[in-house]
């Protein structure tokens, strides 16, 4: 009886879920007057247009040094903001982790900060910070920093609790002090995993930095915006291509590093 009820309930839950989803979809399409069919056909059209216009030509190559400079700015900004965020995230996660916390109060604080920062989307950070610092590299830098800080702190806390709990218990039982435990057990066990998260974050941040650059008028995002608005599609396509290549290089490099440290 009890068991049968559970299966009936599961089935009903599924029906309700799909019904709600269907209503939401149809409702949104009607309200926004989104023509589904036209949506698909315009993808094809865009593709055709892209092939005939959106490719780098000889002339656009003249812009290459400029673009590379901006690209370098974006990549370096992403790496710097992520790495500095990681340093702060290590401190916050040591305070926040159940395994290494010094007091319950600081632990709750650290977790609170992490989840607050993580739940504010990057674009919201950028917009808020723009009010304070206007369109400048600092705005983009700080937006990436805050977003990374939240994400990394949370990942680091999970890593510490997962990989070092047992060893921490053993070292505390030998009479080791707090800093002994951190440097001899927690960091050796969790650093590889932490570095892996850091690489992932750098990767994500380079992608996001492009978008943030649109908003803050800096870096490679700004280059794209500039060429696109001045209808220099060849140069704009060169920008896109370079972004893709950069991301592939970064991802390959981080996979290589990961394989070596794990």
């Amino acid at each position: 009886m009890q068991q049968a009820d559970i299966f009936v309930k599961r089935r009903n839950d599924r029906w309700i879920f799909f019904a709600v989803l269907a209503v939401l979809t149809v409702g949104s399409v009607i309200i926004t007057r989104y023509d589904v069919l036209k949506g698909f056909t315009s993808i094809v059209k865009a593709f055709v247009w892209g092939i005939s216009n959106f490719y780098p030509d000889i002339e656009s190559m003249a812009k290459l040094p400029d673009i590379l400079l901006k690209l370098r700015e974006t990549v370096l900004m992403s790496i710097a903001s992520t790495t500095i965020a990681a340093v702060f995230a290590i401190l916050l996660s040591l305070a926040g982790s159940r395994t290494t916390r010094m007091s319950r109060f600081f632990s709750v604080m650290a977790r609170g900060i992490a989840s607050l920062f993580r739940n504010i989307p990057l674009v919201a950070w950028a917009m808020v910070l723009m009010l304070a610092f206007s369109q400048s590299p600092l705005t983009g830098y700080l937006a990436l920093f805050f977003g990374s800080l939240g994400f990394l702190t949370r990942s680091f806390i999970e890593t510490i609790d997962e990989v070092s709990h047992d060893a921490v218990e053993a070292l505390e039982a030998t009479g080791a002090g707090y800093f002994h435990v951190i440097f001899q057990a927690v960091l050796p066990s969790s650093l590889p995993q932490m570095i892996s998260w850091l690489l992932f974050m750098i990767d994500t941040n380079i992608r996001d930095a492009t978008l943030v650059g649109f908003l803050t008028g800096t870096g490679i995002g700004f280059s794209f915006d500039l060429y696109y608005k001045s209808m220099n599609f060849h140069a704009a396509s060169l920008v896109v291509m370079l972004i893709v290549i950069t991301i592939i290089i970064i991802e390959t490099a981080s996979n290589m590093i990961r394989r070596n440290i794990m």
Partner: protein
Amino acid sequence: MTPETSNPLLELKNVIKYYNRTTPALADISFSIMDGQFISIIGPSGSGKSTLLRCINRMIEVSSGEVCFDGVITSQLKKRDLRKLRTKIGMIFQHYNLVDRLTVIENVLHGRLGYKSTMAGVLGRYSQEEKMQAHRIINILGLHDQVYQRCDQLSGGQKQRVGIARALVQNPRMILCDEPISSLDPNSSKIIMDLLRSISREMGITFIVNLHQVNVALKYSDRIIGVNKGKLVLDGSPDQLTTERISDIYGSTAKDLMTDSEERYAAG
């Protein structure tokens, strides 16, 4: 007997531990232990064995009662003195609790951290003497070929021997073992238990060993303490304890454990 030797090394007086308000994990436990004894604590799962062991070195704080080690009431110790106390009490775990990514020698030397200043410990600076002692113990435990191997490359039995070595470099007076053989096959289990027993005999170290297997306890111990639902239900030497008496005291689970472990040992 001189009065000195008749003083117990460890004494528990009315130890009570509550994790929540309703049921105590330890309910009024008292016993005392003489220097050099090999003692097993047996009891079904959840009976409070691990809690009891951790109350001794204050990895868990008691709710009330007193733990007295070598004449010192442990609950009154401040941080620094608590660290000093813990250097005198080694601990061995079911899951070995090593830093898997570090080498055998590094893990063994962790046993010296309790004696170190903050800076020396953080940087992992050990004296020549400490290193020599670590190597000596590693050799005794038959790990000389693995000294510079990472611990995640070792077998379970080898890992447990690293755990034992880490406890031994502390120069402890007592070693607490929380189910040291529960993750091991019968063969390695026997090696580890023989090792613990001979260390106890030869170095005069007191052992308190949590065990699931009643007949391992019967075979190796000078004395067996039984707990059930946080209460001390049994305390005596192995020859005073028949199978019936044990299962009488803490239910049918004992019989199951007996036959189970007897088979394991017959096979091993």
